[in-house]
């Protein structure tokens, strides 16, 4: 039995470890099967270095035509399943063809890797980074091992960050002026603002602020647009009178947000909107949508 089992088992045990694996920050990542796993976090321009350990099972040898490790950046469109598009591909040859009898360790290093895009897991598109180890074998197929990691890129606070201010209304019915303190927010930011009621002729039930994500994939005629409402935040209860101003304070932290992605490798875009919705007593909705830009601010070491 043992023998038999051994025949179907991979011939060796492979592990990929990062050299700073103990200290590197790990973040949860959703896997395809829905479970989350902790994966190491990197950012662009970082050096990825580590070791690959190939350990044949006892009394076995691994014949191979070479061992290589690749760093891949892939975009996967769900409607085009199985079709990966690699926008980054780096290769390190670790061994010339030969036999491995014993546990063998190969150090590898990808210095200052350019990883311009962040890992993204959307409705219709996925962008992922992975280390792929291949032990090439002529027959019996190559042995392949993946190690995923996550990339997040930090942006400095934008030098210009105007507030969003706008007056909207329905003639002789409702006039409001709203103001959000910025147009660009980082992911843990708080949106501050005010809604001024200039004219109120309708009876309102409540006013909400929605955070919406618009993910568009593909290009041209094949463009797929998916809009999700990530959060609905009630701003006001009841009908205000003319001249009333209602405060806005929305913390972004509890929402599962990513930075705004514009035209990532001509494949997809992710944009965020604030949708101000007024609901009247007959459940009619009056709304105004404004785009905001999200970016990832370098977090303090402390947090």
């Amino acid at each position: 039995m043992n023998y038999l089992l051994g025949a179907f088992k991979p011939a060796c045990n492979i592990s990929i470890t990062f050299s700073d694996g103990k200290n590197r920050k790990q973040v949860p990542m959703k896997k395809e099967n829905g479970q989350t796993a902790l994966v190491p976090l990197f950012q662009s321009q970082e050096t990825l270095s580590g070791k690959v350990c190939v350990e044949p099972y006892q009394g076995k040898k691994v014949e191979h035509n070479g061992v290589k490790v690749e760093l891949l950046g892939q975009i996967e469109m769900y409607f085009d399943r199985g079709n990966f598009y690699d926008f980054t591909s780096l290769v390190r040859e670790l061994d010339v063809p030969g036999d491995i009898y014993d546990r063998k360790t190969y150090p590898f290093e990808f210095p200052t890797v350019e990883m311009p895009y962040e890992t993204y897991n959307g409705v219709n598109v996925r962008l992922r980074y992975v280390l792929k180890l291949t032990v090439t074998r002529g027959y019996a197929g190559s042995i392949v091992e993946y190690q995923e990691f996550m990339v997040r890129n930090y942006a400095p606070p934008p030098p210009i960050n105007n507030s969003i201010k706008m007056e909207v209304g329905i003639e002789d019915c409702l006039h409001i002026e709203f103001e959000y303190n910025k147009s660009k927010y980082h992911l843990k930011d708080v949106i501050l603002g005010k809604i001024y009621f200039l004219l109120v002729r309708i009876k309102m039930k409540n006013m909400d602020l929605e955070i919406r994500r618009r993910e568009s994939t593909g290009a041209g005629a094949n463009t797929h647009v998916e809009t999700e409402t990530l959060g609905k935040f009630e701003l006001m209860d009841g009908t205000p009178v003319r001249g009333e101003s209602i405060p806005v304070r929305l913390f972004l932290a509890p929402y599962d947000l990513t930075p705004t992605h514009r035209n990532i490798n001509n494949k997809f875009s992710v944009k965020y909107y604030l949708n101000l919705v007024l609901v009247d007593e007959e459940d009619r909705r009056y709304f105004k949508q404004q785009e905001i830009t999200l970016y990832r601010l370098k977090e303090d070491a402390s947090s």
Partner: protein
Amino acid sequence: MIADDDEKWLAAATAAVKQNAFYMQRAIDSNNLKDALKFSAQMLGELRTSKLSPHKYYELYIRASDELRSLEMFFRDETARGCSIAELYELVQHAGNILPRLYLLCTIGSVYIKSKDVAAKDILKDLVEMCRAVQHPLRGLFLRSYLAQVTRDKLPSIGSELEGDTETHMDALEFVLQNFTEMNKLWVRMQHQGPTREKEKREKERNELRDLVGKNLHILGQLEGVDLVVYRDTVLPRILEQVVNCKDELAQCYLMDCIIQVFPDDFHLQTLDVLLGACPQLQPSVDIKTVLSGLMERLSNYAASSVEALPNFLQVDAFSKLNHAIGKVVEAQVDLPASSSVTLYLFLLKFTLHVHSDRLDYVDQVLGSCVSQLSATGKLCDDKASKQIVAFLSAPLEKFNDVVTILKLTNYPRVMEYLDHDTNKAMAIIIIQSILKNDTRIATADEVDALFELIKGLIKDFDGLTDNDEIDEEDFQEEQNSVARLVHFLYNDDPEEMPKIIFRIRKHILTGGPKRLPLTIPPLVFSALKLIRRMRGGDENPFGDDTSTPQKILQLLTETVEVLADASASELALRLYLQCAQAANDCELETVAYEFFTKAYLLYEEEISDSKAQVTALRLIIGTLQRMRVFNVENRDILTHKATGYSAKLLKKPDQCRAVYECAHLYWAEEGENLKDGERVVLCLKRAQKIADAVQKMANASRGASSTGSVSLYVELLNKYLYFLEKGNPQVTGETIQSLAELIRSETKKAESGAGTFITSTLRYMEFQRQQEDGGMSEKYQKIKMEWFE
């Protein structure tokens, strides 16, 4: 039906609150912050309902806010365990629904302030600003009420642990003021939402909620930093601004009252013009009367309770400010009912009496203002207003307990003029009763004038009001009796002033008309007679003043009583004439006395026709005449003769007989030797006996022997004889008496019984006198020889 639904919804919401509170508590017990927040938010979500009436919503609110207390404790424990309170402060704001979010924010906010990690001011400001998000009136009111409640013990006030400098005080103040303003706005807005037909219901519901708004003012009243300066410069203007601008009747009325009740008296005193200045700016429908009345009542009590406050009242000239303000209000509110304006003046008057009891001019001023107000409305027919005026006019009476003081108030009678007839009378009686109760002396003629001006409703009929028969006779008597009693209180020991007083009284009383005169003139006459007696007793009038000699007064009385005679009260007039004659007699004024008698006789002859009345009148005449000493022989003879003549002309024989034997006394005065005419005495008695004989004869003729009527006449005669015998009339002889006695005996025998006791007592008396040892009297009786005695 609606109430049932209300009940049902409340039950459902309460159950949900309970359930979520249970899970929240469980999360708290296991230190699960996330779940605690989740369930508390769900619990508070029940408060988002729009289905409940304010009353039921209140119940739900109380339940939920009770549960929040354990959450507050939990937050405190969490921070003690090292959880960052700033993070918690952010965390609760992640709640998606605004109402739970803000309740939680307030809860954590209060913990935050207490931790002193942050300036209380910032949190307070944040909370009060964020609460703007709830614009639904009912939910907003309760939310802000919760905010006020949880922050209350965190404001720097007396006894709180968060003592702060002036700046923190001002921050706290600003916070409360702002919360108050917003709450009031919501409260007012409630009125304007929903269908018009439910206006009344809404008003009622709003009234139930008013204390939520008013609580803020209570908090302000207890804030430590609120001293007079802050109150004057910040608190009051801000509150008033809100009150005036909200233009809502209910709110204005309630809040004005709140201001008055919540803040200390001396604040009000020092800011009187500001507070009063707001009054005319209120909505016309606001019951400003109640507001101002409350204020004045408070100030009055304040003045009454602390003497040291009084100088402050003077210093700020509270009186004229109030007076002015009331004038403004009355002016501004054209259709203010008279009763309301009078109530205002009533409270002003009470205030004045408390604070400026020494300033009669102020009191008069109030009365004057009231008059000018009433002059616009005319006479009052409104019951309520009349009642108020009575209270208004009674106030100074009660305060001073002295009508003399009232008489100095020139506007007092002018106010009374606006009362309808009945109320006027009632008021006059109140005044009189005050005099009677307090034993007030009205001691000058001018005061008498003033007093009669006040009570003229009782003194005379009003123009255009003929005495309708509806007037209850008993009440009328009662009223006039009061007036009569009053006359005796118009009194001065000074013999110069008193005649003047009499003159004035007379002047007023004579206007009373025939119905009143019989009741009011007698006290006047007696009061005058009392004066005359006193003048006689004292020195002769030292000033030689013409008006105040007894002659003059008697002259006056002649005229007065004459009026009475004209008013067909002749019997009374006769009595008064006789009284006057007696007084004249005492003053040795023969002609005057004669004059009075003449008038009395004339009255007797011309006016008194009833035989019973004649008997009574004649007795009085005889009795009076008998005591007169001033007349010379001639005058006396004339009068006596006349009286005897009247006696003989009485209708009934027994009456004739009695009158005639009474006349005998006229010839026999106790003192004065010249007035003892024994012969004529006996003549009279003889005549009387003749009449008695005639009576007897008639009696025997008509009813046989059974009648004893005349026997008693004989006995009476016998007694008269005995009297004169005792007095030493030489003409009364033993024989005469003897024969009379015989006659009586024979008549008695015939009659068998009858006037037995009278006879027996008379006889026993005679027997007794005969056996006296001392000589004089028994000697006289010895002359009578009677068989009976043997």
